[in-house]
Each structure stands twice: as C-alpha cells, then as structure tokens.
C-alpha cells in the first residue's frame, strides 16, 4: 500500500524521503503486521497490542493482569530479574509493558546492530516469564503502594467514582489495578493464569517502523509470537451505561476541586462519528480557541485547563470531560459548562468554527507521524480500531466531507445536557 497522498495536502514539493509507505506484512506463520520502512536511523520501533487487557480479570482476581504485565520484565528463562535487566541494558534495547483497560501493550525499540539478540530477549520475556515468587511479592508491594496513593489522589478518586457509577459490576466499573484486598490475595498461579489468558495469538496486533525490511520482519514475528497460545480468555461483554444525571460530591480536603463529567458517547464506526469528532474539537479540544477553554479559562479565569473527549472503549462509548477549579469557583465553572453544552446541542457550531476546526484537524494530522515510535504506535492503533490500511490517506477526506448540515444534526443527537453527570472531588461551595 502506498501512501503518496498523505502529506500532499500540506506541501507539494516534498523531498523524496518524506513519502510514507505503509506495508502489510504477513509472516510465514500467519501473523500480520503493518510496517513503515525508514532506513535513515539504525533502529526499529515495534508495537504489539494484545486485546483484552485488565478487563479479562475475574472479579475475585482483579488486578491479576496488571500485576502479571508488570512482572514480564522481572525475569525470563534462565535469567532472574537482575540478569534480564542487565541483558536488556547491555543491548541498549528498550522494552515497556503496559496493561490497559482494553489491551496489553508492548513497546520495544532496538538497534539494528543487535536486533537478533534483542528480539531473542523479548521473545523470552513474552513466552517464558519466570514470575519468581520473590519478584511477585516485591512488585505486588509496589502495586499496593500505588493503590494506597490512589486513595488520596483527587483525580483518581474522581475517575474511580465515575466508573463505578457508570458501569457497576462490569470490569469497566472498577480499577484494573485491583483493590488492596484482591491484589494482596493474588498467587503465583493467578499470575500464570493471567499470562496464559492475556498473551494469545487470537488477539495480536503488530506494527513496526524504522530500519527493518518486510522480508526481515516476517520471520521475526513468528519467532517472537508464534509459540504463544492460539487462544486466550474470553473478552468481556458489552458494558451498559447506568449513570443517571446528577452531581456526586466526594469530600476531600483540598483547596481545588477536581471535576469529571460526561454522558454516553457515539461509536467509532457510527456514520456520524466524524461530525461528532469535529463538534468535540470545537467545543472541548485542549486548544486555547476551543469554546470551553475560551469561556472557562480565557474569559473567566476559572480554571487552568478544561477539555472534553469522545472516548471509545471496546465495550462502551462515552463522552467525558474534566477540569479543576478552586472550591469557591467550581459551581460557576459547572454552570458555564452546562450552558455551553446546551448551547452547542441547540445551535451547533458556526460556519467559521467548522472551517477552522477542519483546517486544524486536517493540518495537524500529518504532524503526528513524526518518528518511528509514534508511527508504530499510530499504526497499531488503527488496526485495533478495525480501520483499513489506507485510513491515513482517506481520513482527512472524511473530515472535509462533513457538512454544516451534518454537524447541526449530530449536535442535537450528541449533546444531552440533561443527562450530564458530574463527579466533584474536593470541598466545593455552592453546589
């Protein structure tokens, strides 16, 4: 697949090396990856995602996937934690393992000069992690420490309160890090089971960018991932939104309240998604010219920053936003937010806002592809969302195709001012 058009909107006379080609590479063993070759710098960025993530936990083992993921780099095959780290550092390779709500991410970057050794080491970490009891206990203490910190962090209190109200017993309703009780009770067998259920071939998405050819990448995928179990644990069901309108205040001794708000969102594959995306950018994009930043920060000085986000999880679609404001100003800020939410729902946006938002979104899109690491990360994200390989070329056309009529119609559907729920953590006055 050749993406000659990607940057064409921005500049016509580009140096040849600015062309980005996305290739689809399928390994002999049947694992597919997207690849952007760039041989300017002698290293490769590799991104692997395993769908499922912490939502694969059963309720009594909440936190197992998170703890397991943190333990992947704590020893593999005949290497204990220290030996593994020394081997990795001797190669100057970077590996990171991250447990998300919907997926486990593996990010690796390695030099061309010792690529084979780096891949062999990563293969051992993914396929033969040791999960030594002393490592389990040590990392568990770190997780427990973070959980205790979370109990005193206003932003985390807010998001956990919101999630619990919105999703109840569904995995989305609680922290994937687990609770003090569940994490304390996790055994090594639980970690082994979490590994087997989470890192499986039926849920892999891969992208690479940098100094590697398609011919080199194929066999590498089989070496790295081919021996993982064919199937893993079942994915969670659809999450029902159960959050009624209202305001929930969580008392916390702090001079400034942390606010999280939202209601249901719009699916990523909905025909109206791009219109909704433009509307949100005009209202709650983090930019200074977005309506919320303008009204709440620039005109009234009520906050340092405010934004809203269309959040598309695998099993739920939400429309969320957040800000912080001093306890004596938070009520006014919430009122301004409610007014803006109602206004855009009733009136939509102006012709000028539509035009400038489109220009911003289409113009800034190519700026995201600014390095091997970001490119690999974007390409794996596209695959996870089920987007076609030419999406990077067609995406700006989809933005530009949104009409004034579209945004006004979708605004009425998207914004539900009466449905908003606010979680306020702090000691707000006048609420």
């Amino acid at each position, binding site marked *: 697949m050749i993406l000659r058009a990607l940057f064409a909107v921005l*500049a016509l006379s580009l140096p040849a090396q600015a062309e980005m080609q996305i290739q689809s590479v399928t390994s002999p063993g049947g694992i597919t990856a997207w690849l952007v070759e760039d041989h300017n710098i002698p290293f490769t960025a590799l991104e692997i995602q395993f769908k499922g993530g912490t939502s694969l936990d059963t309720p009594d083992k909440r936190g197992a996937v998170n703890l397991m993921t943190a333990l992947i780099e704590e020893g593999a095959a005949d290497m204990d934690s220290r030996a593994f780290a020394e081997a990795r550092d001797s190669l100057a390779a970077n590996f990171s393992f991250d447990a998300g709500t919907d997926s486990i991410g593996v990010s690796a*970057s390695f030099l061309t000069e010792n690529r084979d050794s780096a891949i062999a080491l990563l293969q051992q970490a993914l396929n033969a992690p040791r999960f030594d009891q002393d490592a389990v206990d040590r990392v568990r203490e*770190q997780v427990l*420490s973070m959980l205790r910190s979370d109990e005193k962090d206003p932003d985390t209190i807010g998001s956990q309160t919101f999630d619990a109200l919105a999703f109840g017993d569904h995995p989305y309703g609680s922290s994937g890090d687990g609770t003090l009780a569940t994490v304390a009770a996790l055994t090594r067998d639980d970690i082994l089971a979490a590994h087997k259920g989470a890192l499986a071939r039926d849920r892999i998405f891969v992208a690479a960018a940098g100094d590697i050819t398609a011919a080199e990448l194929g066999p590498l995928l089989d070496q790295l991932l081919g021996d993982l179990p064919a199937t893993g644990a079942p994915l969670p069901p659809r999450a029902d939104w159960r959050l009624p309108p209202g305001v929930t205040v969580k008392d916390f001794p702090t001079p400034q309240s942390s606010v999280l708000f939202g209601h249901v969102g719009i699916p990523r594959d909905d025909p109206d998604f791009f219109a909704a995306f433009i509307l949100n950018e005009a209202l709650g994009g983090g930019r200074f010219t977005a309506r919320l930043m303008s009204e709440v920060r620039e005109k009234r000085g009520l906050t*340092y920053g405010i934004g809203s986000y269309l959040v598309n999880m695998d099993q739920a679609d939400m429309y969320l936003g957040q800000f912080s404001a001093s306890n004596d100003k938070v009520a006014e800020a919430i009122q301004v937010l409610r007014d803006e939410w109602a206004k855009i729902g009733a009136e939509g946006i102006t012709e000028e806002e539509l035009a*400038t938002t489109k220009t*911003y979104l289409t*113009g800034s899109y190519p700026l995201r592809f600014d390095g091997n690491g970001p490119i690999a990360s974007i390409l794996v994200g596209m695959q996870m969302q089920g987007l076609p390989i030419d999406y990077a070329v067609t995406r700006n056309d989809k933005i530009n195709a949104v009409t004034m009529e579209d945004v006004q119609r979708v605004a009425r559907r998207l914004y539900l001012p009466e449905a908003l729920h606010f979680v306020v953590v702090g000691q707000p006055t006048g609420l």
Partner: protein
Amino acid sequence: MLRPFGQGAALALALALPVAAEPVTTFTLDNGLSVVVIEDHRAPVVVQMIWYRVGAADEPPGHSGIAHFLEHLLFKGTEKIAPNAFSGIVEAQGGDDNAFTSWDYTAYFQRIAADRLDLVMEMEADRMRNLRLTEEDVATERQVILEERAQRTDTSPGALLSEQMRAAQFQNGPYGIPVIGWRHEMEQLSREDALSYYTRFYAPNNATLVIAGDVLPDEVKALAEKHYGPLAPSDGITPRDRPQEPPQLAERRITLADERVSEPYVFRTYLAPERDPGNQKEAAALTVLAELLGGSGQTSVLARALQFDRQVAVYSSAFYDGTSIDDATFGLIVVPAPDVSLETIEADMDRVIDDFLKTGPDPAALERIRTQVRAADIYARDDVNALARRYGESLSVGLTIADIESWDDALSAVTEADIMAAAEKVFDRRNAVTGWLTRPDLLETPE
C-alpha cells in the same frame, strides 16, 4: 554570518560519535539573535522555538512568578494580532503551539507544516517587541495562574515538600523561589510588572531561535533576517551574575505532614555543581553517578540494596540535571515499605551511600551505561523536538554548541575515579536538605 557546523565538523566528530551527528547550523543576526538550525528531512514538519535567556531566577525580589505570568500573557495579542488570537491562527494552519518557563529560560514553540514557517516566524517576531496588554487581560490571566498553582502545587503534598526543600536548599541564590511564584506575590502581579520585565528582557540580543525539521539553513536565514532582523535589541541586558551560595555549614531538615499523604517518603537533595562551558567533566560524572545509584528499578545500587537484598523499600531513585546557570542539586528519594519508618529508611539509605563510597561502582554496570549513552545518540535522532529542546535549553544556560555536541563523549569518558571523586564531594550533609513527607497521625506515635 553563516557558520556551518554539521557538514564541516562531521569528519572531526565521526570518530567520537559512531553515528554522524544531525546536521546543525548556527548563525547570528546583526541585532544579536542567535539562530540554530537542525535539519531533519524525514517529514515535512518544522518546529520553531524561541528561547529567552530570562526565567524565574531573574525576577525582581517580591515579584515571584512574573516570568511565568508573562509567558501566559504573551498569548494575548499585539498591534497586528487580535487579543487571544495567536494560538487560533497557528491552529487554523494545522499547527500546535505552547510555551514553558523555568528558572533560567522562557521558551515558546510552534509545530507546523514546514511551508508555514514564514507565517509563524512573522508572528513570533511580532510578539517579541509589540505585545499589547489590557488591565482586563492581566486580571483574568492572574486568576488562571492562581488556578494553575492550585492544581499543580497546592493540591499535591509532594509538590509542596519539594517547594519547601528548594527554598531551604538555596540560601542566597534565586533557585529557591518557585517558578509558578509564591501565592501572596502572584496575587499582586500587575500589568506594569509584566510590561517592564517584557520590555527589558524580550529582545533579539537576549534570545536563541531554534528551527528544527524539514528546512534548509539558507531558507531559515533569509526568513529570520526578514522577520527578526528589523527588531531593535534591548540595552537592558546584563550578565546573569546572580548571588552565589555561601559555604553551607549545616544540613537542613524539613518535615511536611499532610493528611492527604498516603505513602510517606524520604527526599534528600545535595547542592551540586552544574555543567560549565568548556568544563562538563564533573557534571558528566554526577550524571553517571545518579544513573548507577538510582537509574534502574532492577539493577541500580539503591534498588538492589533496599528492594532486592532486603525488602525495606518499595521505590528508590537518584537524579541529577546539571543543565543550569548556577549550582544544581543531586537528589535521592526512597519510599519505605509499609512497616518501615522514615527514620529507619533514611538510615538505610545513608548506609547504602556510605557503602558505595567504600566499594565504588561495578565496572560492568558502568560499561552498560556507556553502551546506553552511545545508543541514546541514535534514538535521539528520531525525536527532532527533543533535539531542538536540548539545543535551546543548553544554549540558554550559557553552554556552547561544542559543549552540547561533546556531552555524550563526556558521559562516555567518565571513569570510576571520576565517579568516586564526584561522589565524595557531593555527598556532604552540610550541603543537604532532608525532607520527610508524612501524615499528622504518623507523627503522633513515637517511632
């Protein structure tokens, strides 16, 4: 005068750097503006950064926060740009912009398609000398910075402890004043404060322009002369000779007890030398020392002793950043296991340091760090924004291009003896501030 650095010097550097350095060109305009061009033609994108050689450590006494406040106010408007329209113009071209302030510099940047450099240069040059501020702009934005302080500092016991510790660490120099400002002084910052500071310090002869990305030096030079060239220099720029620290004679100890603290910890900082132009050896040794002591959760000296050999801590780290004009700090932090007191863990931490001073570094660990330094040079080329930032920051604290280009070599050249000499010198408790972050209920019960 165009002074090509990359092409001409690449041969000389080729032996020192396994991978030829990115092409970097520097020149200076007649009005004193220094310009650095970093070429990266992989994508048609450019970043413009203007770095003013003024920051929170250059503020007049009693006006803390004015450097950062002015940074906010620079987005307000000029004769040509309508109030609050600056960012909107950049965004309408598909670009992003922002700014940041530290003790030694204030910097503004835009990332945008390379063919829009002309526009953002015109805008950045315009607001270097032509800012317009109303009383209303100032009053509203002052509320924003107070909210910023509330969000970043006042709601975070850890941030409050760090602020108190810096104030105690620097007994005479200005680094003890928080960049965001002390609240009672921020509340008084006025339009006149901002404008007098702006008029004196925002000028071509007090700035470095860094342009990085898909550009050619000749094009940049022509655009810089067109937009920045006509600007008048300031006659208020003086050497940044700030009050220096006296010999520090006694350790300072601070206990901050806050009911919002969940995980108590011990935080120690020592006064430490910074990188100096033409002399980075000691700073390089301290950088490697921090990496050895606390750079890795699996292999560092502190982690091995406190988290592996014994399980008395859940987290430990050591850090040092010598890119500053005046003395920097070397920091240690240890979060104890739940049943271990701060008193005990502090003693353990000091025992680890004492042992290190007796035994010295593991040669294999030092070799691994050298390997990573070499590789970091390769990985760094993938991130032109970070490169631009490295050049801008280093030049803003008085380092030279040669210092920047030789920093990785300085790191690779650090020997065991260098590390031990730097460690012996820096680990002097008379120069230290020791902070305990804890909770009131934990103080009530004697340990």
